[in-house]
């Protein structure tokens, strides 16, 4: 990356122009460093006020794409203590990394180990792209590689009434990449939205009462073997953990 160019835009429209010219956005940079991407240029989005936004609106909480995991977790926790997104973000990586990992970077790169994927999908989060006023369902975006490549995420909105629930990450140690993550959003006493990330086919979303979700997940989920664990072991572990999440799903005392 010795010929790497840097840009420091101050508005969303400048960012969009740079993005359309083939340059990549940079917020925290942790994914870029880990993956050693071949890049011609980076534009740092931290000076764009709209991308640092954290606000509570009538329809939910809006998080700008340059907001760090630390700041997002803190803001979300204050709005709704124990919600699935703040719990997930505060368990990711480590304190100094959470101070750098950004919401937008995680959404755009969607690594298999991301702690944000399952809770955003379970809670029905919607994205805004720079230059558009249309809401895009996060789960749709996550599954569409072309959409991810061609759009610059400016913010994500999460409805406050759908972020209560439970979250689980399967790791060997606290500071580890999860093999899979589970998020259960309780929408009513007998209707849940459950997201599983890390399955063989990436992100999966199941909806219904707890029995229906567990039955469908048991029949249709599959995982690749990894780190000495068989596919069957990982699947049985995922289903067991999923069962454990339901009694707590949306409990008021969380």
């Amino acid at each position, binding site marked *: 990356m010795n010929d*790497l160019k840097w840009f420091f835009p101050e508005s969303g429209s400048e960012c969009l122009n740079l993005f359309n010219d083939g340059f990549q956005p940079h917020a925290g*940079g942790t994914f870029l460093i880990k993956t050693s991407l071949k890049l011609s240029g980076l534009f740092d989005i931290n000076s764009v006020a709209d991308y640092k936004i954290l606000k509570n609106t009538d329809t939910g909480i809006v998080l700008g794409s340059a907001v*760090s995991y630390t700041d997002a977790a803190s803001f979300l926790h204050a709005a709704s203590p124990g919600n699935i997104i703040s719990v997930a973000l505060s368990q990711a*990586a480590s*304190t100094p*990394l959470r101070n750098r990992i950004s919401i937008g970077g995680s959404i755009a790169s969607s690594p298999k180990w991301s702690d944000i994927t399952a809770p955003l999908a379970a809670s029905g989060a919607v994205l805004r792209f720079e230059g558009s006023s249309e809401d895009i369902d996060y789960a749709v975006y996550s599954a569409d590689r072309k959409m991810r490549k061609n759009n610059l995420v400016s913010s994500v909105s999460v409805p406050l009434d759908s972020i209560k629930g439970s979250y689980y990450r399967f790791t060997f140690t606290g500071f580890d990449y999860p093999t899979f993550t589970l998020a259960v959003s309780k929408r009513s006493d007998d209707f849940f939205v459950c997201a599983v990330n890390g399955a063989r086919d990436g992100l999966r979303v199941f909806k219904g009462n707890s029995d229906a979700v567990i039955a469908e997940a048991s029949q249709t989920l599959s995982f690749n073997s990894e780190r000495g664990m068989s596919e069957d072991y990982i699947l049985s572990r995922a289903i067991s953990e999923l069962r454990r999440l339901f009694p707590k799903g949306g409990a008021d005392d969380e």
Partner: protein
Amino acid sequence: MNNLLSLDFTVNGKSETFTFKPDASLLTVLRDNGRTEVHNGCETGDCGSCVVILNGKTVNSCMVLAASAKGGDILTVKALGDIYNPHPIQRAFAESGAVQCGFCTPGQVLSTYALLLENPDPDVEQIKKALDGNICRCTGYKKIIEAVLMAGRLMREADNG
């Protein structure tokens, strides 16, 4: 060696201009400019030896592209104190026996500093969470946690006159 960047930073309260390759990490730039108190451990964001405080928050300097920190306010452990005039956190680490080989200590001390600025009286769980990015392969952490508790006491006593 063309396409070098020259950008301004504030390091330990002093304005500095550093010249570096556009893909250089903050760790590399700091060490190349004499800040060898920032230790180079894993270079993958796992060990915390390279932790510095950037604009008030701890970061793994190995995981920060230096250009993205332009204009930033950076603190290394030398900003806190030295052997002749140690900061209460440095005193607490020494007096608690929280230092063995010392390689991880600058990162541990800076993570402690950031924690105590935000929360002057943390409990053990809060300490474990705040120092979860700092690995020590000598002490087993018990003494480090004791040091953070002691540092909190010393700083609160100092604040109370």
